[in-house]
């Protein structure tokens, strides 16, 4: 899932300093699971804003809405007609949701309520870890299912480097060395040959905005055009 972190309150408050009527929009999917931008977090942020602005003598009117997925037009449509009553919006979705919302309502300023941080896994409630950087050329098949682009501090494709320290990465004792883990897993599977071959330079596919059009979709489009 996509993992995000609530922005510091002061930063959000500063972004909204000129707004009098604000709608805070949560997202019920990834950011709700990682406790950053679901309906509960929307409520918390609004309560904080309300008190702070009251104390400043600049009361603010706040609305709350949480849609199932902000990265999906179908769900965003619920906000049509509602959003026009506000002079600013705080979106607590990931960066994708925030942009999709801003795109749908270009007349209203949309501010981010979270810092979108990574694609990661749920280790426990409140503990998330990054696992993929969306490099576009997945080579987990070579590396025993452990991603060095993400988990190796240098993103090495032919590791480990000379800095590995008793299983830890050179950057930090608490960070396991991804390549040590790759080595161990492949050794257990009897597949070390897979990293004995040189992995050629990566074809970095994440340097321009990417679009995926599935063949089925393209076909449908073609048929419709006829």
């Amino acid at each position, binding site marked *: 899932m996509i993992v995000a972190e609530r922005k510091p309150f002061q930063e959000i408050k500063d972004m909204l300093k000129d707004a009098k009527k604000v709608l805070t929009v949560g997202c019920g999917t990834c950011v709700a699971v990682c406790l950053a931008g679901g309906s509960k977090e929307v409520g918390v942020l609004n309560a904080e804003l309300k008190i702070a602005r009251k104390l400043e003598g600049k009361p603010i009117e706040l609305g709350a809405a949480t849609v199932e997925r902000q990265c999906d037009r179908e769900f965003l449509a619920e906000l049509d007609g509602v959003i026009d009553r506000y002079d600013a919006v705080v979106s607590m979705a990931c960066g994708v949701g925030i942009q999709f919302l801003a795109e749908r309502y270009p007349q209203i300023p949309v501010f981010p309520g979270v810092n979108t941080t990574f694609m990661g896994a749920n280790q426990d409630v409140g503990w998330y870890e990054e696992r993929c950087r969306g490099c576009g050329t997945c080579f987990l098949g070579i590396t025993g299912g452990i991603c060095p682009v993400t988990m190796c501090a240098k993103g090495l494709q032919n590791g480990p480097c000379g800095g590995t320290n008793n*299983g830890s990465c050179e950057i930090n004792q608490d960070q396991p060395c991804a390549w*040590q883990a790759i080595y161990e897993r492949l050794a257990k599977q009897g597949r070390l040959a897979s990293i004995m071959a040189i992995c050629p330079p990566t074809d970095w596919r994440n340097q321009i905005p990417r679009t995926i059009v599935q063949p089925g979709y393209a076909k449908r489009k073609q048929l419709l055009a006829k």
Partner: protein
Amino acid sequence: MTESNLKKILDAGHFAFTGELGPPRGANVAAIMEKAKFLVGNVDSVNITDNQTAMVRMSSWGASLIAMQAGLEPNYQMVCRDRNRLAMQADILGAWAHGIRNMLCLSGDHQQFGDHPQSKGVFDIDSMQLIGMVRKMRDEGKFLSGGDIDDSPKMFIGAAANPFAEPFDWRVHRLAKKIQAGADFVQTQCIFNMDKMRRWVQQANDMGLTEKVYILAGVTPMKSLGMARYMKLKVPGMDVPDDIIDRIKGVDKKKQADEGIRIACEQIQEFKEMKGVAGVHLMAIEWEHRVPEIAERAKVLPRPKV
């Protein structure tokens, strides 16, 4: 075209002796000249480090050119942390055009260690791929992209090896990979654990690797007990056994540097006789002025002329 002195020395079967020079934290030419003075005539080639420990310094190629004026042959270090494949290839062309003949291809210490921890590490390609790229430029006359090079650089290609980092059993295979990628010579991490080094060289001999690559053993004289302890505890990938610490601790404080040099000379003596080792790379860190003495005591002088 002048040829690499280091290559000629090694090809002729001489025991090579290389040094190291860290560029200044500024444009101080005199500082390079001062360090160079102690190295000229005492080493076959000098590694010019590239933003070592991720601290900004004069560029490696810039300092290499000054070292050449001082009469040294540079071994131009390049790390993958600070530039992408375009910048790397451009710099390699420029370096070659200016007469640089050796290169050492490295991943580089993580930027978090240096003076700009906020920077974006590039790591477009890794050290293995860099070696392969320099070889492709040399042997095929092509850029990484496959495009033709108009007058290609013919670098003598170096790589680093750390026989002490875990997983130990993998290290010799990594050496094999670097050779396959195109390394002509390898300089190792500073060696203190001689046992492990012997085992690693033995493995390399058994796999026939030492017939394909020149291994230069990395030697660093300890200046003091403080340095020995620091190296043991603080430097990633460094393996300093207790007997080294004990030996330095065992002598009077004023004699610690001397003891450090004595240990280094004993190591060099052993490497001269070790099958599979083609030379020594002396990393006298910020201790260039002691290199003449170390070279003398290690009996590697005079350097052969080839």
